[in-house]
C-alpha cells in the first residue's frame, strides 16, 4: 500500500479542494467518496486492511445517506430546475484562493508537526489528515448550508481519523468512530429532510 500513498494524498488534495470550491451537490458527494478512498489508503499504512476497509465502507455509507437525502429534497422542491446551490465567480475564486492557502500552510507546517509531535507517523499521513481537517474547517467557517456543514464535519472527523489511526489500533475505537460517523450522516439526512419539508410548506 505504501506505493499508493502519494497518489492517495494527491487524490485527497484534489477531492478536498473540490468540496471547498464547488457547490454542485453531485460533485461534492463524489469528491467526498474519493476523499474516503484516499483516506482508506493512508489508514491502511498503519492498520490491517480488514480494519481500514471499515472506514471506507462507513464513509461511503455516510456519503450516500447525505447525498441521497439531499437529492430527494432537491427533487421535491425543484423538480425541473438546476440543482446546484447558487454561486458566483468571485466566490469560486475566493474559495479557490482559500484552499490554496491551506495547501501551502499544510506543506509549511506538517514537517515540524511530525518532528515535534508525531515522530513515529509518516509525513504523508500527517499531511493527508491535516489537509482534510484544514479544508473542512475553512468550509465550516464560510457557509451554513446543512448539506455542506455535515460534509465538512464528516471531513474533519476523517482527517482526524487518518492521523489517529497511526497512533492507536483499537477495535472499540473503530466501532465508536463508525457510530459517530453514521450518527453525523443520519443527523445530516434528518436536517436536509426537515429543510425540504419547510421549503415544500412555504411553496405550497
Amino acid at each position: 500500500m505504501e506505493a499508493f500513498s502519494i497518489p492517495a494524498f494527491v487524490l485527497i488534495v484534489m477531492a478536498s479542494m473540490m468540496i471547498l470550491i464547488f457547490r454542485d451537490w453531485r460533485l461534492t458527494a463524489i469528491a467526498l467518496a474519493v476523499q474516503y478512498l484516499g483516506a482508506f489508503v493512508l489508514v491502511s499504512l498503519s492498520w490491517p486492511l480488514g480494519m481500514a476497509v471499515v472506514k471506507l465502507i462507513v464513509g461511503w455509507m455516510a456519503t450516500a445517506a447525505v447525498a441521497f437525502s439531499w437529492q430527494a429534497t432537491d427533487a421535491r422542491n425543484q423538480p425541473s430546475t438546476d440543482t446546484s446551490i447558487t454561486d458566483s465567480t468571485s466566490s469560486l475564486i475566493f474559495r479557490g484562493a482559500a484552499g490554496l492557502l491551506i495547501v501551502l500552510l499544510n506543506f509549511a507546517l506538517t514537517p515540524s508537526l511530525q518532528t515535534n509531535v508525531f515522530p513515529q507517523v509518516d509525513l504523508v499521513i500527517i499531511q493527508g489528515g491535516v489537509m482534510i481537517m484544514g479544508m473542512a474547517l475553512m468550509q465550516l467557517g464560510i457557509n451554513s448550508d446543512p448539506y455542506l456543514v455535515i460534509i465538512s464535519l464528516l471531513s474533519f472527523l476523517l482527517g482526524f481519523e487518518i492521523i489517529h489511526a497511526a497512533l492507536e489500533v483499537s477495535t472499540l475505537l473503530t466501532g465508536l468512530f463508525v457510530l459517530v460517523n453514521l450518527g453525523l450522516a443520519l443527523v445530516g439526512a434528518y436536517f436536509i429532510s426537515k429543510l425540504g419539508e419547510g421549503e415544500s410548506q412555504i411553496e405550497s
Partner: protein
Amino acid sequence: MSLSTPLIWVLLPIVVAVVCVFLSKQQALSFILAAATAFGLALLAAFFPEDLTLSIGPLNLAFEEGLMVLGRQITLVYEIFPFIAFIFGMTGLWLLTSSIPGVPTTFRPVSLVITASLTAALSVQPFLYAALLIMTAVLASIPILNTDKKESFRGIFRYLSFMTLAMPFVLIAGWLLTGVVSLPPESPLVGQTIVLLGLGFALWLAVFPFHSWVTMISEHNHPTVVSFLLFILPTTVLVFGLNFFDRYAFLRTSEEIFTVIRLIGTVMIVFGGIWTAVQDELKRAFGFSTLVENGFSLLALGLSAEGGLSWMLMLFPARALGYWLWGYTLAQFENHCGSLEMDALQGYGRKFPFLSTGLILAQLSVAGLPILASFPVKIALLSQAFSIGQGLGVWSFIGSFGLFMFSIRLLLKLTTPNDQDSIDLPRTRLTPEKRSEYVPIVLMVLVLLIIGMFPDSVLSGITDVLSAFSQLQ
C-alpha cells in the same frame, strides 16, 4: 453471559428507549415506562450493595464491574454510583415533565439514551474513549431540538460543530499526555498538550468565546429540553474531566493550571452575569445564566486545593433542581402566554402567582439567594475566591449579581399591572393556573428551601464520587 453493572445502567436504558419509540402512540405507557426506568435505575444505584451482590429472597445475583466490548473494558465501579444515581434521578425528574404540551415526543427515549451514553462515557477504559461517547450523546440529542423553524438551524449546527471539534482535541491531547508525563515541565510539548486539552474542554463547556450556541439553542427550543441538555452535558463533562487530574500528577500539582481555570471561570461568571442582567427574553436569559453556572464549576475546580472539588460536586444537585424548576415554569409560561419577552409578561404575576413565584425563586436559587439551595455552596466559593485574591472575589460577585438583577427586573415587570388587568381581573377567576401545574412548583420550592437550610445532610452524599478518583480525595 454474567451480569455486569454496565448492562444495567448502559444497555437497559437504551433497550427501554427503543421500546418507548415503539410506544410513542401510547403516551401514558411510554411516560410511565421511561420515568419508572430512570427512577428505578437511580434508586438501584443509590442503594446498590458494595459487594455488588443483590439478594432478592432466595435469589443471589452477583454483578461484575466490567463488561468486555470489542476487546476493551467498560467498567462501572461502585464509587461512581452516587453520580450515576444522581444523573438517572434527575433524568427521571425531567421525564416527569415530558407530558407538558410542546415537549417533543422523542424526549423520553432520547433523554434515556443520552444518560446511558454519558454513563458509558464515565465507565469506558481507556477513559479517553469517553470523548466519542459524549459525542454520541450529542448526536442523540439532535432529535429533541427544534428543527421545524429554519432560524433554529444555525444554533443547532453551531452546537454540533463545536462538539464535533472538541472530540479530536481531547483525544489527541489524551494521547499526547501519556507521552509528556516523562518530559520536564518546561518542555514546550507539555504546554501545547495542555492547550489542546483546554481547547477541547472549552468547546464542550461553552467557555467564552465558544458560547454562542448556548443562547441560540436556548432561544429556539423548548425550555424543558434546553434545561435538561444544559444540565446533563456540562455536569458529566466536568466529572469526566476529573480523570485527567486524577491520572496525571503534573496537571494536579501545577499551580498555573488552576490559576488559569479560576480566571476562565471568573470570566464566564462576569460575562454570563452581565449578559443575563440585560436580557429581555427569558429563554435567552436562561442560556446566559447557564454560562455563569459553568463558570462557577470552573471556579470551584480552580479552587480544588482549598476543597473546591467538593463544592463543585455539591453544586450539581442544587443547580439541577433549580434548572428543572426554571425550565418547568418557563414551559408553563410559554404555553399560557405564547411569548417569553419580558414586556409581554407585564402584569402576569397577578394572573399566574404560582408560576411567577416559581420562576423567580428558581432564578434566585440558581443565583444563590440565602436559604435557597445554591446559597451555602456559592457563599463558600465566593469567600474562598476573596481569600485567594480580592479581584477574583469581587468580579465573581459582580457576575453572580447579574442574575439577581435580572430576577429583580422580571419581578418588577410581573408585578406591574398593565391596563388590561384592571378590565379583566374582576370578571375572571382568581388564577387560571391548574392544580397539576402549581403542585410541582410548590413541592420543588420546598425541596430548594430544605436543601438551603440543611445543605450538608442533603448535598454531601454526592461528594462520595471523589472516592472514584483516588488522587483527588
